[in-house]
């Protein structure tokens, strides 16, 4: 009888706890999830649609040119009757490829230059930073146009053009970070512990700046996509038969004046939406690597 009175397993919690979590956390999570979903959708679309969908993006149908969005062509058709949804996906694929390739190149160059300048110091630092200043003093687009003009139109000249105009900011960020780290006592401790210059750079400095550099790289992808679009829009980037978001908008210019909005709107959206999604994800990531109150969180 008395047996079924269970012994209290743990002291009952009599304390009334009050939470402090700011209410905006929930919308933040939603924003991050939306961004992640959109980025995932973008990546899946450009990776899966071309091999899975057996449709030719170049299929011309002059009988159905400049049709507004319909069930058959959700985004409408362009001035030679090509399906715009398909063209947009292929365009996004090219633009994203250019963006990622250019951002990676720019980040590698920028990190190398910035780390070298910061870690070596002295005249090497001054010389490298003068090069950076010189490049920065020329307007990006102008320099980009100049570089593209030296090659035959194609994807790689655009990548090079965008990369060469975008490594500067990364170099500056990385150099500043290295300089601030270099004066930390833990570098002194490493030197005193017998670490070589190379070991200090590879073991202590570089890993500390990599999150920064990677963040800069991610943020640079949309930047590079816009740069590509700008070049293509000016007719200097990719040849018009290669669908990129820039070339799509460029060819649609004429029809916009005639009241046909869809050939401009949809490529534009394809440019803006991934940009915002990537920036949203990068922002969340930045909050993770630079939490303002890390020490408080950790007591």
């Amino acid at each position: 009888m008395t047996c079924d009175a269970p012994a209290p397993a743990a002291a009952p919690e009599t304390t009334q706890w009050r939470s402090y979590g700011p209410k905006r956390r929930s919308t933040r999570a939603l924003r991050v999830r939306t961004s992640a979903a959109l980025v995932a959708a973008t990546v899946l679309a450009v990776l899966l649609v071309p091999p899975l969908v057996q449709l030719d993006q170049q299929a011309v149908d002059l009988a159905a040119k400049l049709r507004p969005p319909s069930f058959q062509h959700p985004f409408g058709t362009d001035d030679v009757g090509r399906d715009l949804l398909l063209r947009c996906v292929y365009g996004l694929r090219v633009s994203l490829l250019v963006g990622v390739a250019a951002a990676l190149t720019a980040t590698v160059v920028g990190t190398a230059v910035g780390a070298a300048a910061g870690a070596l110091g002295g005249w090497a630092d001054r010389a490298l930073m003068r090069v950076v200043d010189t490049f920065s003093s020329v307007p990006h687009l102008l320099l980009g146009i100049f570089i593209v003009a030296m090659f035959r139109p194609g994807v790689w000249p655009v990548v090079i053009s965008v990369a060469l105009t975008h490594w500067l900011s990364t170099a500056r960020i990385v150099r500043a970070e290295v300089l601030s780290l270099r004066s930390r006592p833990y570098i002194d401790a490493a030197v005193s512990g017998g670490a070589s210059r190379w070991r200090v750079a590879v073991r202590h400095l570089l890993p500390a700046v990599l999150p920064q550099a990677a963040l800069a790289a991610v943020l640079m992808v949309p930047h590079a996509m816009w740069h590509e679009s700008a070049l293509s829009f000016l007719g200097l980037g990719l040849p018009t038969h290669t669908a990129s978001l820039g070339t799509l908008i460029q060819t649609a210019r004429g029809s916009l004046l005639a009241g046909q909005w869809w050939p401009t709107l949809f490529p534009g959206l394809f440019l803006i939406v991934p940009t915002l999604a990537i920036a949203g994800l990068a922002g969340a990531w930045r909050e993770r690597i630079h939490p303002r109150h890390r020490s408080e969180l950790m007591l």
Partner: protein
Amino acid sequence: MLELRSITAGYTRNAPVVRDVSLTVAPGESVGLLGPSGCGKSTLARVAALLHRPDSGTLLLDGEPVRHWRHRAPRDRRTAFGVVFQQARLSADPRLPLTDLIAEPLRATGRGREVPDRIAQLAPVVGLTPDLLTRRPHEVSDGQLQRACLARALVLRPRLLVCDEMTAMLDASTAAALVAAVEDYRAATGAALLAVGHDRTLLERWCDRTVHWESLS
């Protein structure tokens, strides 16, 4: 073993922080350098540990003048010194778990094989438990991190320890524990000590000899 002769040092060309300072540490001796904050004693400690090139003056290590500082100094000279700084938080690479933090000098000098043995010896000396060793700096308290920083300074068995305000940020008990660990090491190895600080009571209790910053130049 260490002699500083009329050292002048600083970070900008025309404003030396340390002016014409001389100080000697004999083998096995412990010297407390007492001075107010901001007087330049930390800079002198960095000069003494071959971490900062002075603008002028001579530094003699075992009677031989030192000509090179930081990376240019021969490795066995650099590693003759063990340094501990005031702010443990800034003295620890935030990415490295405490084990790696302590083992780093061994790995940097190509003695990675000794790591498990040395860690096993040193952890009890500085009072770190195995569970703490696997954590990263942001997961331990300032006191625990400073214990790891002391272990790192001892790992290469230095002949001279330079402790720059080692206990200034710590509570009394942790401070006493770290000083005891330093003294145990010195008793076992005969290493010398240069302890820099502003706490007269502490340095006079800790060191054989206490010198005042004002009396040095």
